[in-house]
């Protein structure tokens, strides 16, 4: 069975275009509000900043950046993590413990292969998966 799941595309190109256009317009508004060109052709900070353009540019920039971040976060969440399932086999006589990946046909209390140390019977004592808890 394949563990890979085809990732569905969640970001629409239209939404991405709108975000990029908003970002560009906001950048223009911000530059108009803050930057000026002096007589020598140097770029300088405006002495009289245009408040409304600063507001438009700033809010547009924040909103589009947030939306871009949100779409990125959503695609990242789509990945499915699968945790390995472990089988523990214990020798009933000497207590030798063998921990390996689960194999089809394993079940708890199944008689497994003879003990490599004492050649006695071994049995599967537990089958589990380990999960890293996200807090």
């Amino acid at each position, binding site marked *: 069975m394949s563990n890979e799941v085809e990732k569905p595309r969640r970001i629409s190109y239209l939404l991405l275009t709108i975000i990029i256009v908003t970002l560009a317009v906001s950048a223009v508004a911000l530059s108009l509000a803050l930057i000026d060109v002096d007589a020598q052709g140097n770029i300088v900070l405006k002495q009289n900043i245009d408040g409304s353009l600063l507001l438009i540019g700033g809010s547009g920039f924040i909103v589009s950046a947030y939306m871009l971040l949100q779409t990125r976060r959503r695609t990242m969440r789509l990945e499915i993590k699968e945790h390995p399932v472990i089988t523990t086999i214990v020798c009933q006589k000497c207590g030798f413990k063998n921990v390996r990946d689960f194999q089809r046909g394993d079940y708890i209390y199944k008689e497994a292969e003879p003990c490599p140390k004492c050649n006695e019977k071994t049995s599967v004592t537990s089958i589990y998966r380990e*999960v890293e808890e996200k807090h």
Partner: protein
Amino acid sequence: MLPPQINLDGGDNSLIGWILQIAWLLFFVVFMFYGNRIQLYVMLREIEGSMSRLKIFRDEGRKNAIQTIEELGKPKGDPTARVDQFLEYFALPPQSMDPAGIVWKLEHLLDVMDERFKDEVKIMAPAADMTQTRNIELTLEVALDLNYFYKVVRHFYILGKKTLSLYVIMQLQMVLPLIMRMAEAYRSALKAVTLGQPIGDGAGALVAAKLMQGYEKRKIPKDCVVATVPFEGRTAHIIKAEGPGGNVGKPGDAIKQIIEENEGKIANIIMIDAGEKYEGEEPGEVAEGIGVAIGGPGVDQFKIEETTLKYKIPVNAIKIKEDIGDSISPMRKEISDAVNTAIERIKRVVRERSKEGDTIIIAGIGNTIGIGQ
């Protein structure tokens, strides 16, 4: 150099400044009149994303079922058509206008469904042994559930799109995270049941299996095993569903039979089952209480309650906590480790709630897939 001043009295009078201000105003007007419509489309897009994910799960379930049948059952022909028919299987609940006797009607219905599923699997996978048959049956049931999730979400999505009703779409969008959580749990269950791995729901069965190790077992109806074990100076009848195939058995019938074999002389019944935890609680926490600890449609719970009431037998319950996702996914280490804690609790309950020489019943409830005895 003077610090820059922020001018708030009218703004830039250049053409670009005017265009930007008009665009800003338009943005507000559009949001004022079409805000709901935009919200609706955003929600529909979100549902679409989840739906495509559900479709992937559904297809994976179907593919898995077909592969498992072909691999284990060695069918003569292509089982695809039969699997597709099975995925559309439904069971109509009994009429409850007159609720007297509904338990027996429900039990009959469940028995018929069980038989039908088994027969279907036998036809689809003639070479499968009993354990494999049970696992294939469970794989098909999980695939059926994944198909159901997809179809229900698709139904409401199309309905919402057709009616453009914000409230239909909003309701679906609100429950979608819970549906997706369930669907993802079923998806991981798919792999577990296909391979025959123990699942979280089998915690109770695992406790019983551990207690009956090294003692003689006998089969009791239906699909259960019992072992008579000396336990803390008492005689304990340990009951669990017969493993290692995917099976929950009928613990109601099994407990009733043991009580009747002992002419009602049972000092105490202790039932161990996996129970749903609240968010914030740790998986594998063990709690104790009273009552019949058993899930499902309620038939077994009803039978046990009837029998214990008849003979006035106290019923104690031990719960191993886990969430819905864990209960149908491969068993977590925390739950596997909780078995020893649960056994210690059983010992304490037995010592406190019965006398030496008494006869008791300890029933490990749950799906015994991947757990022998």
